[in-house]
Structure formats: C-alpha cells, structure tokens
C-alpha cells in the first residue's frame, strides 16, 4: 500500500514537472510583456524591472483592440454555431442513413481533412473575388462553415455511432418526428462532443490568420490576429507589444476554456456517453 501511495505521488510529481515544461514558454511571454523588446533581446530570462503596462497600452492602441475584438467575436461565435449545427445534423444523417451518396460525401469530407490549404487558396480567392464576394464577414463565416464542417461531421459521426438506436426508436413509437428526435434525444447525449468541438473550433477561428487575411480586405473588418501586423517587420519581430497583445487576445479564449472545461468534466462524471 505504501508503495502504491508512493507511486501515486510520483505520478503527480511527474505531471507537475511536465506541466512546468509545458508552461515555460507561456511564462516567458507573460514575463516579457512587461519588458521592452530591447530587454527581451538582451536576455529573455531576466525579470521585469517594474510592473509597467506600456506594452499593453501601446498594443491596445496599435491593434485597435476593441474593434478587432468585436470582429473576432462576431466571426468566431457565428462560425462555430453554424459549424456545430450543420455538422451535428450531417453527422447524424451519415450514421443513421447508409445511402450510397452519404457514403461518398462522408468519404469526400474525410479526405478533405488531408487537403493542404495552399491547393485551395488561389482558386478560392479567384472564384470569390471575381464574383465580387470577398471582403465580407458573412462570406468568411460561410467559408469557415465549409472548412469546419468536415471535421465536425467526422467527430460527430464517430460518437453518434455509439448511441444505441433503441433510444430513438422508442421516441418514434411515441410519434416524435425525425427532427424532433434528433434535437430532443440525440443532441443532449452529444454534449461533451459539442463542448470539445466548441473549444477546438473557437481556437482555430480565433487565432486564424491566413484565411481572414485573404478574405477581409477593409481595415474595419480586421480581426485580432490581423491587427498584429504592426509588430512584424520584414526581418524581425517587435516582441514586447506583440506579447502584450497576445495575452490580451488569449484571455477571452482562456476564460471560455475554463468555463467549458467544467462542462466536459460534468459530461464525464454523468457518463453521458455509454
């Protein structure tokens, strides 16, 4: 028994050491967001000399933070809602109806996850640009839906398979429609998957740089990652305000993650998926 207890604490120690390794780069960011770029270049490990918020205020101004934040928020929230709704329904369709067309579509979506974005980049801007459809948040959200649905379908497909069909059958017996059954019976069971996908998709869209840089041309539409351009020059990076900007950018998603994580745990303890 003592040996076992010793093992448990060893495991805890290993976990925390590993955690420290994981967090080191993060700590360096926080520490250096209070220093000047010059001090950072000199020695990234030196401690800040005081708690100056200069980097934060200058990042706030130069990123036009509030506007960028609102743009990022609208785009991320709407895109994720659309992706989750679309892909959960389609995932369900693909599991419950083994039609040939569904098989092909599922295969195509799966394969598209292996598609390098660079193949699509030029044709995408060419098509949408010549139709005059670029430079709109709605089109960007639509594109996120197109790019995000395959992974969503793939994930939901995997988990819906594990839900016994009997649950739905009994609902049908009571005269419930297909749509109603999906939203009332199946969706609630998928809560942990939803939460997981929300986290993954929010992070992807919140931090994405390339796609919005191609689609959103007006300065008014800039998202937070697009707003960091002032910190990058051709050969070097202005680290300090960048790090301050970075911290301000990730605080909202960190808060979201902490909040949703409780949901994940709840899902686990309830054993929602059996």
């Amino acid at each position, binding site marked *: 028994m003592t040996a076992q207890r010793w093992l448990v604490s060893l495991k805890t120690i290993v976990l925390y050491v590993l*955690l420290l390794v994981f967090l080191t780069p993060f700590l360096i960011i926080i520490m250096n967001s209070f220093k000047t770029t010059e001090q950072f270049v000199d020695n990234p490990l030196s401690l800040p000399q005081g708690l100056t918020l200069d980097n934060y205020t200058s990042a706030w101004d130069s990123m036009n933070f509030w506007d960028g934040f609102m743009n990022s928020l609208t785009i991320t929230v709407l895109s994720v809602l659309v992706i989750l709704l*679309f892909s959960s329904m389609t995932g369900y369709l693909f599991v419950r109806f083994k039609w040939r067309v569904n098989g092909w579509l599922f295969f195509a979506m799966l394969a598209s996850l292996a598609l390098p974005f*660079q193949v699509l980049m030029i044709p995408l801007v060419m098509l949408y640009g010549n139709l005059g459809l670029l430079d709109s948040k709605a089109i960007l959200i639509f594109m996120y839906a197109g790019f995000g649905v395959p992974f969503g379908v793939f994930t939901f497909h995997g988990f819906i*398979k594990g839900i016994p069909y009997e649950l739905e059958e009994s609902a049908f017996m009571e005269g419930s429609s297909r749509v109603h059954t999906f939203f009332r019976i199946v969706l609630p069971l998928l809560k942990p998957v939803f939460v997981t996908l929300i986290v*993954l998709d929010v992070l992807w869209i919140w*931090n994405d740089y390339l796609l919005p840089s191609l689609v959103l041309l007006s300065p008014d539409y800039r998202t937070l990652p697009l707003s960091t351009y002032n910190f990058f020059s051709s050969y070097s990076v202005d680290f300090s305000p960048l790090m301050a900007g970075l911290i301000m950018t990730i605080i909202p998603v960190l808060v979201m993650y902490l909040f949703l994580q409780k949901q994940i745990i709840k*899902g*686990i303890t309830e054993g929602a998926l059996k």
Partner: protein
Amino acid sequence: MTRKQWMRNTGIFLLFGGPSVIAFMAVVVIPFVVGLYLTFTNWDVNTGDSSLVGLANYKQVWLDTVFWQQLWFTLRYVFCTVVLANVAAFFIALALTGGRRGEQWLRTGFFTPNLIGGIVLGYLWQTLFSQVLPYLGEKYGWSLFATSWLTDTDKAFWALVIVTAWQLIGYLMIIYIAGFAGVPGDILEAANMDGASRMAIIRKIMLPLTVPAIVICIFVSLSRSFLTYDINLALTKGGPFNSTELATYHIVQKAFLSNEYGVGQAEAVVLFAVVAIVALTQSYLLKRLEVES
C-alpha cells in the same frame, strides 16, 4: 422504394445534409476541382492565361528531386510527431480523468499551448532554441544546448517535432478526455489505480472502448502534422540551408517564390494524395480493430 418514401428521404437529406453539403461544395470541392484543373494548364496570375499543357506540370514534379526528398523528410517528421503526441496525450488524458483535485488546472495547463496561433508560437520557440537554451547551456555547461538546435540539421528536425507535439498534445488530450467519457467510471478508476493489472486493464478494456477517440486523434494528428506550415515558417524557415523544409513549405516556395504556380499546385495535389492514403488507411485499419473487439 415508393415515391412517397423517396420524397421523404430527399427531405431528410436536404434538411440534415443540405447546408453542410452546400458549404462544403462551395468552399472546398469546387475550388479543389478548379485547382486540380489549373495543374493541367500553364496558368499563372500574371498572364491569367490558362491553356492546357497536359501532364507537363506533373512531369516537373517527378523531376523535382528536392520535393521527393522533402516528402520523405515530412514522412519521418509526421511519424515521430504522431507517435510522440498520441502516446503522451493518451497517458496525460488518462491521468487527468480520475476526478482528483487540481485536475482542472492541470488540464488547462496542458492545453494552453493551443491558445496561441502557430506563427507567434514558432517565433517564441525560435527565441527559446536560439537564445535561451544556448544561454543556459553555456551557463551550466550542458553540451546538448551549447549551440542552437536550429542550426544543426538533425537537431532542427527534433526541434520541429517537439514544438509540433508540444502543441498537439493538449489538443489530442481533450479529444481523449471526451473519449474516456464513454468509459464506465469503475473501469476508469481501476485504470487509474496503480496495480499490477493496470496495463492489462488499459490494453484489454480501455483501448477498445476508446477506439473512436483514437481514430480521431491519429487522423487529426496525421493531417495536422502533414500540413504543418506556420510553425515551419516561423521556427526554422526551412533552415539550416533548406534541410528542414516540410512539403507544404516547399510547395508554397515553389508556387509563390519560384513563381512556378502550376508545379507547386501539382505538388500540393501529390501531397494531398499521400496524406489521404496514409490517413484513410490508418483509420480503415483502426476501424477493423474496433469491429473485432
């Protein structure tokens, strides 16, 4: 099939699949077909001209020995990254689903690398590898870190693997955690107990039950590491002397810097074929495992 049933099925398809399929077609499939078409033409943005040139671009791909070297390099990189990230993520996730106190903070901690986008992350690690570690190496006489990892061909490879895995682990961890949600609590408890039968429990009960999560995780880590671009760009810039150019990096350089758009695009199609074959084969194999168990 009766007409009425057919109508009903079409309705179901349009309702459940319609929006997804439209978005998927408009954003992924059609641009892909256009892109595929471009590989058979001599299109470039400058002339806008696109006359058919047959397989000329693919012949160039075949002759581009650097591309094949880099594809091999990419395969090695993907293999190491996928194995490292999945093994670590599986065990961390397992250790963090026992319902003990402090777990929530640990999970958040392991996940934080994902909060930062790839480019910034790459720059940060670049500073770590080229400044911080050599500084510490010199101070404490660790010969492993005496020089920057990024200026040595082999060490730069491992730097890429470590940074990618470092970010992927947290990502995969939460998928595994969601997957463990399907495992009955008493089994989880048993797996977390440190007894002699622990590995057996993991192998015989946990693994089969978490196959969906494993399939997803391996698939995700495969496609993500195959398509790594940002980290490559910011961390090593393909250096030292182009020895760490991953396939996507090479493709972008080819298409936009060397201005051979058709060849770059054709190489991207080849890469897509390779990734698709690898990823689909592994999920097919794992699925069979799932059926058998």
